[in-house]
């Protein structure tokens, strides 16, 4: 526990020396963050390896009920990606952000965000949880606003702030309902509570609160603009860890409920399938590399929810196998997604740093000039598509196994739906990353910006390398994390049932490792065998004899993704602007296709515009006179007092 507290303190103060040091403040911050990561991960690993959970308790008097911070297996599991990604992000920021104006403040707030996240995962009292939650929300808002001179960034920041506070409001209400029932949060609730009316209210409020944070499909509106606007190492932390705090909240809720009703699992499954499929479908239509990755975060949250839904169904129906496979898949995917999505955002940041643009159609051909970045991006893309032998495959493997088991157990239609959703998500993700990788790293440079680039400095490549290694480690040796997963799943299960089956017996993990190694060996042999004997000459692509090929005659990102996007146009509703092509020798024409966000651009924005028109009638109340505002406070206070007494 002291290791954990030391890690939190180090992360919190990591930006402070930089405020007074004239030089090297970034290096000091990164060093402190690295130290925090080593200490905190050591504490987490000790708990996950079976050590006693660390506790820091306060007496009940000031807080209403006892409890402060508990480093139990769930907290330890979520703590690992928090600290790993923060340390990687802090090191990456050295080269990426450098000493631009505002760098000191950025480092300070980055440390604050890490500390809030680390406190949040171990919170064992509603007050501590809310403190961590708000600290996280506000620090992230400040980080998104790092480049607040751009109008686009300011818009993204405000949307994020509104969304996160709407979620927090629901969270307050949820804790309020729990407290009103006399059921203290952060303790196992009595049986029968979940099926009652207030249990339903708590579940719905938690879904809203945590759904906003996690970016579950209809509530994801803040996610793509904020991830695109933030500096890349911040996007990595937000996408990798911050949105997972929504999942942490759901996991905590499920761990307090011994008997979830059947429909909870069904709702989680439906939301998961919706987020997963729509997330990846909208990712296909994006032109901005970081927006594309942001939509993939929504997709992966969907996959995690599918796992949580399966596990919850298993818990309600009393099928321990289903429960273990579903929860283990979801939890492992939480870790995996933070690793590979952090990796992808860092490589996208490396691309943006080198070229100054994130637009897929302005890039191209970077693979030759930035081999390490392109390798890292490829590894991340490989993992996120769920291909063996990297880590994304392992967690999706658990989910596939879980839904097959469910099919064998009771022949529900649900499990067929889960299987179909998983397959569809996997296939579309593969198409999307083929598009992204191809447009950025293969072919020829489309603009001068993409032509004269250099590989990023080592301080940016090393964090990416660390994440690639972590992805490969989990992919090649999943048996290493299985005992830890068993403990976390055990913390989620009903407290009395000690007899949950172990994961290694269910999923054939050693066989998986063997197959992965064999696959890797085969690939290596094939690669060596097929390697060209002589240095190949660099020639243009065969262009059917056309005399003057240029870089513009390549597939663009839009044309590559045209098949799936046109096929899904009844969902995506793309906006197309194009010139007419007439006659035999047509003049220049243009073609543009945007896929606007279904919630933000099609629903929330018009609705808000409309409500602004109505609400402007109320502007007389904002007179700008301070005493009048104070009078409002006084009148409210009086009304409340009188109402309370009479």
């Amino acid at each position: 526990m002291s290791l954990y507290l030391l890690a939190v303190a180090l992360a919190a103060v990591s930006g402070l020396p930089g405020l007074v040091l004239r030089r090297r403040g970034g290096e000091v911050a990164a060093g402190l963050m690295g130290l925090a990561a080593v200490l905190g991960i050591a504490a987490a690993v000790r708990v996950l390896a079976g050590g006693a959970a660390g506790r820091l308790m306060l007496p009940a008097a000031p807080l209403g009920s006892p409890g402060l911070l508990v480093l139990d297996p769930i907290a330890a599991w979520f703590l690992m990606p928090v600290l790993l990604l923060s340390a990687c992000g802090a090191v990456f920021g050295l080269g990426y952000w450098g000493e631009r104006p505002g760098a000191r403040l950025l480092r300070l707030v980055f440390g604050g965000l890490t500390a809030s996240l680390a406190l949040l995962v171990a919170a064992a009292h509603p007050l501590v949880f809310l403190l961590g939650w708000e600290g996280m929300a506000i620090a992230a808002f400040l980080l998104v606003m790092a480049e607040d001179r751009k109008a686009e960034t300011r818009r993204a920041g405000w949307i994020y702030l509104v969304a996160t506070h709407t979620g927090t409001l629901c969270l307050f209400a949820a804790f309020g309902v729990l407290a009103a029932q006399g059921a203290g949060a952060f303790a196992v609730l009595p049986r029968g509570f979940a099926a009652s009316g207030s249990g339903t209210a708590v579940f719905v409020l938690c879904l809203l609160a945590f759904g906003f944070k996690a970016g579950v499909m209809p509530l994801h509106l803040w996610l793509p603009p904020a991830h695109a606007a933030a500096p890349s190492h911040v996007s990595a932390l937000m996408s990798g860890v911050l949105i997972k705090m929504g999942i942490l909240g759901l996991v905590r809720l499920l761990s307090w409920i011994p008997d979830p009703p059947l429909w909870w699992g069904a709702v989680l499954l439906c939301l998961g399938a919706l987020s997963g499929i729509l997330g990846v479908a909208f990712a296909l239509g994006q032109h901005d590399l970081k927006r594309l990755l942001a939509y993939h975060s929504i997709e992966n949250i969907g996959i995690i929810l599918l796992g949580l839904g399966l596990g919850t169904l298993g818990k309600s129906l009393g099928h321990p196998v289903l429960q273990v496979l579903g929860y283990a898949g979801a939890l492992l995917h939480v870790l995996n997604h933070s690793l590979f999505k952090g990796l992808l955002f860092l490589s996208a940041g490396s691309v943006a740093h080198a070229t100054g643009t994130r637009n897929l159609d302005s890039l191209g051909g970077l693979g030759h000039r930035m081999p390490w970045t392109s390798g890292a991006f490829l590894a991340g893309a490989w993992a996120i598509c769920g291909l063996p032998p990297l880590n994304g495959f392992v967690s999706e493997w658990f989910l596939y196994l879980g839904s097959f088991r469910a099919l064998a157990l009771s022949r529900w239609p649900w499990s067929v739906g889960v299987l179909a959703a998983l397959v569809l998500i996997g296939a579309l993700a593969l198409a999307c990353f083929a598009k992204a990788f191809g447009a950025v790293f293969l072919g020829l440079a489309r603009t001068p910006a993409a032509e004269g680039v250099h590989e990023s400095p080592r301080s940016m490549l090393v964090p990416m390398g660390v994440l690639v290694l972590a992805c490969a480690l989990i992919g090649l040796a999943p048996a290493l994390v299985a005992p830890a997963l068993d403990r976390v799943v055990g913390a989620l299960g009903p407290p009395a049932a000690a007899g949950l089956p172990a994961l290694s017996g269910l999923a054939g993990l050693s066989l998986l490792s063997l197959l992965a190694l064999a696959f890797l060996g085969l690939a290596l042999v094939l690669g060596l065998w097929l390697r060209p004997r002589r240095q190949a000459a660099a020639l243009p692509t065969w262009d059917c004899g056309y005399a003057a090929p240029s870089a513009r005659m390549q597939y663009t990102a839009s044309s590559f993704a045209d098949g799936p996007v046109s096929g899904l146009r009844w969902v995506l509703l793309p906006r197309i602007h194009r010139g007419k092509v007439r006659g035999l020798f047509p003049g220049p024409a243009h073609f543009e296709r945007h896929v606007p966000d279904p919630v933000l651009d099609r629903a929330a924005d018009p609705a808000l515009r409309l409500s602004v028109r109505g609400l402007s009638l109320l502007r007389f109340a904002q007179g700008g006179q301070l005493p009048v505002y104070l009078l409002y406070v006084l009148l409210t206070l009086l009304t409340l007092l009188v109402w309370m007494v009479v």
Partner: protein
Amino acid sequence: MSPDLLIALIMLTNFTLVATSRINKAIQVAVVQGVLLGLMPIAMGLGHHAHILFMVAAAIAVKGWLIPFLLRRALRHVQIHREIDPYIGYTVSLLLCAAGTGLSLVLAHNLPLKAGTTPTYLVPAALATLFTGFLVLVSRRKALTQVVGYLVLENGIYLFGLLLVEDMPVLVETGILLDLFVGVFVMGIVINHIRTAFDSTDTRHLAELKD
């Protein structure tokens, strides 16, 4: 000294504050009220706890010396002596203050409080002081007077906090810290910034900042 006497004196300071037009006198009244408040825990017979004695000393030091010192310095700095042309005149303010005091007696009588050893008039006095602070905040134009109003409001909250002083001394002590915070921050920000921005401490100018 009985607590009821102190409470009566505190209520009297409320009325004096509302009726005064000189800023210097308003600060003086706030000092007197601060010292009276500081003595409250002793009058309530809690003087045998060491940390409560410490709290008394801290409250008197902050409310009776530090904040008035800062206020007087600001007063010398801005060279204003009277509150001219307040939003609500002095007679009406006095009547409103009386109405507020009456209302707080009624409210406190009906508030569902735990029956205990607290002096009978502590809660009405807390509410009345709170209302008076609000009244000064709402009705005066000069930033300095508004700060005094805020301090009196804060005093009301402190009085209410005394209900809890035996159970949660930390909470009440944090309240004193909040006073200090306000003293420094409100003064620094409101007074100096309005003056540098508008060349006056009249808060009317803040209306120009509205969206």
